[in-house]
Structure formats: C-alpha cells, structure tokens
C-alpha cells in the first residue's frame, strides 16, 4: 500500500528539498511507499483532504483542527521550539509608529495563510480596524507582501514571524514592524490519518528519536528543525479550543 504525504502550503520555499529528504528517510524507516505531494495553496490542499487522499500531513493549526475533529487524524509531534507568530509591518518611510496610528480604509497585503491572517486582524482591533473598514489583497508569498509595502501598493502587511525574519537584510531595512504576536500556543504539527493509525506509535517513536540517529539528525537539519516533541491529544485539543476563541 502506498501513502500520500503533504505539507502545509505555508512552508518556506527553501525547505522543499528538506521535505523530500524527510520523505525518503521516513519511507526507508517504515518500509512503506510514501508519495510527497506539494500543493500551491490551502484550498487545493483542503480539497485533497476532503477527498480523503492524505495520510501524513505537516499541518497548519487551522487545518489541524479540521483534520482531527472531522477527518479522524491524530497529531503525533510538533517541531521543538517553533511557534506560529505574526508580524504587522509597514513601509519604513511611513510616519506610522504603532497600530493605533492606522486609519480606516488601509490596504492590507497578506498571504492565504489562515492563522497569520487571523492573528494580523486581531492585532488591528485596537485601532478599530476590521474586515469592514479595510481592504485586503491576497498574494502568493511573504516576499510579495514585502514588495507591495515597499512600492506603497499596500499600507500594512501581515507576515509569519519566521518569514519576516528570513527576508533579506535589504528588504527588511525598508520595512518597519509595528507589532509582533506573543501567543506561544499556536504551532504546526505532524498528523497521520486513519489508514496509518495502526502504525501511530511506531512513527511517533521514529520521529522522537531522530536526533539520536546521525542520518535522522541530518534530515532534521535540512528541515531547519532541532527535533520533534511529543504532543498528546489534550495538547492539540487545547490549541484547537484556543483557535476557536479567536475566529
């Protein structure tokens, strides 16, 4: 039997090779065929999820909620020390110094990453800004969010903090972060679907012991992870409850 693995479309493009290396490593360890399919956007990935095509997924917290509560997936692990946080930034030349300086009618540039957009909108609330008095343009990547700000095609941009930190120095110097989230509880996680449920303990053990194995450690490095840590059902339920309070 062959399985299908996929990655949340908000992964950093420079890590594509790392996910292929991870998939090869996992296939060897399990002795199972696993095909890695990468989707360009959240909607096409959700369509595959709805059609029960996916067996292993490194999921965005929004999708984790749906996968666990509606599709019978189980969360196994999350990357050590990696949380999803958002940054709101403006063009560095603007006189805006804090969120409260922003006014209705502003143009927001963001990607289709649902948790970053949600966190960004929450951080605009103290300026009495919401979906009704702002304009949103959805772009394909955080690089394009940055470009729109630099060209004054957008007034504020929402970034995944990790993506903002990874912009080139030249780009970042032309931007000014106004606020960063400090939520700490929202994170991506690796989940398996019902067809792999019988192998759940084995897969989790393999992942948790990757740091102890020289090859495994190299694979983690190619993903930019220090290692995986165990998450139990209650950890994930807590995160999903928290997400529910925010939407």
């Amino acid at each position: 039997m062959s399985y299908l693995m996929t990655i949340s479309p908000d992964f950093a493009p420079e890590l594509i090779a790392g996910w292929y290396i991870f998939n090869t490593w996992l296939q060897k360890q399990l002795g199972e065929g696993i095909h890695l399919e990468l989707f360009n956007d959240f909607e096409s990935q959700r369509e595959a999820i709805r059609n029960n095509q996916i067996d292993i997924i490194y999921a965005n917290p929004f999708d984790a909620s749906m996968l666990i509560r509606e599709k019978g997936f189980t969360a196994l692990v999350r990357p050590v020390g990696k949380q999803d946080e958002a940054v709101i930034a403006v063009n560095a030349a603007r006189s805006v110094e804090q969120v409260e300086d922003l006014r209705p009618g502003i143009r927001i540039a963001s990607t289709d990453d649902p948790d970053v957009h949600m966190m960004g909108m929450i951080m605009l609330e103290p300026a009495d800004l919401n979906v009704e008095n702002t304009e949103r343009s959805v772009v394909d990547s955080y690089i394009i969010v940055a470009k729109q700000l630099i060209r004054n095609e957008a007034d504020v941009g929402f970034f995944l903090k990790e993506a903002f930190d990874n912009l080139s120095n030249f780009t970042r110097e032309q931007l000014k972060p106004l606020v960063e989230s400090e939520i700490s509880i929202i994170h991506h996680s690796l989940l398996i679907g019902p067809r792999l449920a019988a192998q759940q303990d084995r897969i989790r053990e393999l992942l948790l012991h990757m740091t102890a194995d020289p090859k495994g450690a190299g694979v983690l490095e190619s993903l930019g992870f220090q290692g995986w840590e165990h998450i139990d059902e209650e950890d994930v339920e807590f995160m999903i409850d928290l997400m529910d309070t925010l939407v």
Partner: protein
Amino acid sequence: MQDMSLDDIVGNPREYELTFYDGSSRKVYVTEIEAPYPDGKLIVSRTDKAGIITHVNRAFVEMSGYSKEELVNQPHYILRHPDMPRAAYRDLWDTVEAGKKWHGYVKNLRKDGGYYLVYATVIPNIRNGEVVGYTSVRRKPSPRKMAEALTLYAQMLLEEQA
C-alpha cells in the same frame, strides 16, 4: 474567598464588598490606575466546570498582578471588578453552560487595585461529548467598543443597585 489586602494596593483605593453567585463575598480595593494591555499578547486561562482556575499563561500572571500559585485553584471571580454588572457574568455563564461561545468586553481587577480592559472570549471545552471545563482568551480591545461597553455597564449597575 480571601479579602484583598491593603498592603498590596498601589494608590488611593475605594472599598467595596462583592458578593458572588455562590454566596461567598470578598472585600476589594479599587483604584483608577489602568494597566495598559500589552500589544500582541493573549491572556489565556482554563477553568473546571465550576469556574475554578486550572491553568494560566504568563500574560495572565503579568496582567493580573498575582503569582501563578495565587491564581490556580481559585475561582475565576478573583478578577471581578465592582464596575462590572452581575448581569454580564450571568449572560456569560448562561451562554457557555448551553455549550456556546461567549464574547464580551470586560474590566478586570488587579491584585494592586488597578484594572485592565480586555475583549474576552470563553468557550466550553468539550471532550467525548461532555463539557469538562472552559477556556478563556482575552485580547486587546477596540477602544471604541470598550468605551461603549463601559457606558452600558455603568447603566446596568445603576439598575442593579436601584
């Protein structure tokens, strides 16, 4: 529940006696000093079904002025400010006990007698079809909506006291 201590209060307080839904009461001291809500943070807590705190995050500890040890195992009404009408909390409990999500603007009381303003969301934690407790998440409010809520609460308080 234990009364607030004047030793903890910063500024010139007013004194109130609060009575809670469970019949217990508490002497509280209140000042007009607002602790500004920090940008980007969420205050998170969980309670059991009876409203007893089981979990608080760091932002909760920082904003309330209590230590984690002083908060866990205490009723969530340790934060109750006398400017909040009883009807607001009745609405909260009626909503979450019916298994629904509650949103509202809340003025919370700090250990030092000051206050902080939040937009709060409370949801029931449902496990295997049963409500096992509640999660509350508070964030920085819209100042306009907060001001509207405080005006409404002042009217509601007058009606409750009439």
